[in-house]
């Protein structure tokens, strides 16, 4: 077990190192931020001063070494646009994103699991067909356009909810969040719904496929043959085994939600990490782009690592398979 965790950890570190190198090469070889930052009236002298200030006159390998040593100290440079430490900028935006993701995840799980169980157990009833028919639209609908339509219907046509931004913040138990205020909930509802809808349809399909598969297995048949009540078979024999899969799903979900929050945040002007990266790409604010990419890679690798370890704790067969490779 320990060996497995250590191996996975080393692997993760390797991936992070490779990613940072790739990110550096990509970002520092292509694009010139000075063009964007210097005003159009600036003369050659201003231009050169800017280049020196940003350290862009150094050879590439030197820039990379500076970048690496700073990286190890947790210094990812200053944002060109805000002249604040880039890492700080990104980290400041994390709570807003996580808040959105948490609300969306709760919404998606609370609706997805029951609906998935139902359609999996009764695949041929009209309601199940309706749910599956709707879910194919849910999977197909482009997330950003769905967001636009939610704004159009609920914010423009009916004017029930605000179209964007984050609501009032409040601090309770040391946690600052907009979820403590009514205004905050009004603002978070629409973007969270937009994020949740796609994930919810995914959960429905995953749970449904899983339930259908498990329902055909011998032990379920046996439980039924034994004369157990349907309710017991469903909630003990099938649900329990579906939940094992759900841990992976939740892990993937978390990643997917963080990734898709970029789109939702842009549509709903939600001040999270996703909006920051898109804004930074527009103005070629390279330190912020790099900081975002590194933060997101670390987040993802951590999530994957935790999911893998949890999975191997729950299902010992995985551990055996991993050991068997060597």
């Amino acid at each position, binding site marked *: 077990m320990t060996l497995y965790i250590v191996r996975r950890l080393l692997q993760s570190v390797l*991936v992070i190192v490779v990613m940072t190198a790739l*990110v550096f090469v*990509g*970002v520092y070889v*292509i*694009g010139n931020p000075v063009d964007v930052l210097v005003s159009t009236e600036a003369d050659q002298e201003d231009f050169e001063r800017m280049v020196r200030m940003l350290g862009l006159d150094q050879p590439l390998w030197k820039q990379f070494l500076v970048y690496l040593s700073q990286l190890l100290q947790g210094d990812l440079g200053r944002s060109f646009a805000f002249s604040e430490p880039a890492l700080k900028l990104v980290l400041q935006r994390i709570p807003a994103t996580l808040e959105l993701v948490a609300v969306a995840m709760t919404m998606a799980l609370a609706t997805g699991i029951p609906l998935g169980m139902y359609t999996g157990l009764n695949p041929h009833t009209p309601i199940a067909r309706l749910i599956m028919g709707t879910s*194919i*639209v849910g*999977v*197909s*609908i*482009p*997330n*950003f*356009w769905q967001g*636009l*339509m939610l*704004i*159009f219907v609920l*914010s*423009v046509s009916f004017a029930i909810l605000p*179209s964007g931004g984050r609501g009032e913040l409040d601090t309770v138990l040391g946690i600052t969040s907009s979820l403590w205020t009514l205004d905050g909930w009004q603002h978070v509802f629409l973007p969270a719904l937009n994020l949740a809808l796609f994930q919810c349809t995914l959960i429905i399909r995953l749970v449904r496929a899983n339930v259908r598969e498990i329902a*055909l297995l011998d032990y379920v*048949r046996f439980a*039924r043959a034994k004369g157990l009540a349907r309710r017991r078979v469903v909630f003990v024999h099938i649900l329990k085994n579906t939940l094992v899969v759900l841990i992976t799903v939740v892990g993937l979900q978390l*990643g*997917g939600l*963080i*990734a*898709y929050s*970029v*789109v939702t945040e*842009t*549509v709903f002007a939600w001040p999270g990490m996703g909006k920051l*990266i*898109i804004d930074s*790409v*527009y103005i070629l604010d390279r330190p912020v*782009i790099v900081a975002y*990419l590194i933060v*997101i890679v670390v987040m*993802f690798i951590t999530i*994957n690592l935790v999911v893998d370890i949890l999975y191997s704790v729950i299902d010992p067969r995985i551990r055996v398979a991993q050991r068997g490779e060597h």
Partner: protein
Amino acid sequence: MAVDAQVRPGGASALPVRSPVREFAGRYAANPIAVVALAVLASIAVIAVTASWIAPQNPYDLSAIDIRDGRLPPGSAKLTREAAIGLGIVVPDVRRAELQFEVRARNRSDDAPAQALEVRVAPAADGGLALHLTPAANGPLDPLKSVQLRGLPRGSTVSAGRKDRFRNVWRLDPEELPGLSIALPAAASDRLQFDVLATGGAQRHLMTYWLGTDDQGRDMLSAIFYGLRISLSVAIASVVIALGIGTLAGLCAAYFGGRVDAVLMRIVDVQLSFPTILVALILLAILGKGVFNVMLALVIVQWALYARTARGVALAERQKEYVEAASCLGLGAGRIILAHILPNCTPSLIVIATLEVAHAISLEATLSFLGLGLPVTQPSLGLLIANGFDYLLSGYPWISVFPGVALLITVVAINLVGDELRDLLNPRLQR
């Protein structure tokens, strides 16, 4: 659990000779939703291919669009603009003036010039000038909307006209044009020079903007047709390239095994552990936008999936006797992989590739919407929606609603077809 022992009516036993293709088509046709989806998909493909012929307008030909038609709601008509004629008339001697001529004009650049206005100038009894302006019936100026006389000598008066309070402009009432006379001041010279400006003409109906227009006055229906073409071609091209690369990698991993397999599959694992949108976003954040970069990102995002699928199927195939037989015949690895194993992997790959086209269309649209995808010179559906985003909140919803509907219909149709193919080709679901 009932034991499934259904005998399909009209199945293989009823028709002893039936080709696999017809058998497959028959099973596909049994699902009406999938048939409708296939028909929709075929129509979309036809629209995308023939967009430049069937679109009512070339939305990117600046001479075809008119910014004054901007943001018209769906169902509005595109009308011809009013014709306008400006004439400079020189009368060398007012007392002996006898001029008569006709002016030809056209409403649109592709119309033939037609007689528009007949002008006759004659000396009037009181030393003034009689001016007869007769618009040709059904000509480009009929009905006449406004007539102005400009540049008359100071102190002149025009019958049936109103002088502008500040400028030397006389506005004439089109009703009283015949028998118009100009009284000239006593001090005026014999030579007279003035301008006639006339506007008018029937507003002919040219086309209907069934889905409205965007802010530039572009027909949304045409823009969607062209957008479909761009979206589909980018998606299909990237899927084909990724399918080629991924399949080859997966087959090699399965056939050679060992280190090749381990390295390839580790890369695939790492890549598939990140959501596609994120990988594409990172790539484009670094590379910048552009058609090539978007396709590169789509290929990089997708190849791993094909590699994993191809490897999985090929691993199972490799164990089979026909592969053993082929290697016993001394055939090379390349030939065994491509000619023996690959054909047996195609059903699974076709299903995934079909579904991935839908995914690629969505992904490209999302990236374009975020401003990281295609440049404005290649307006895919995602860009059209992005353009309409600003107008959504200000009461012009159709600019982003309709491209989105087109996108949705396309993706749903592809998904339905792909799902049906998967169900038909999946032996586990066959009864």
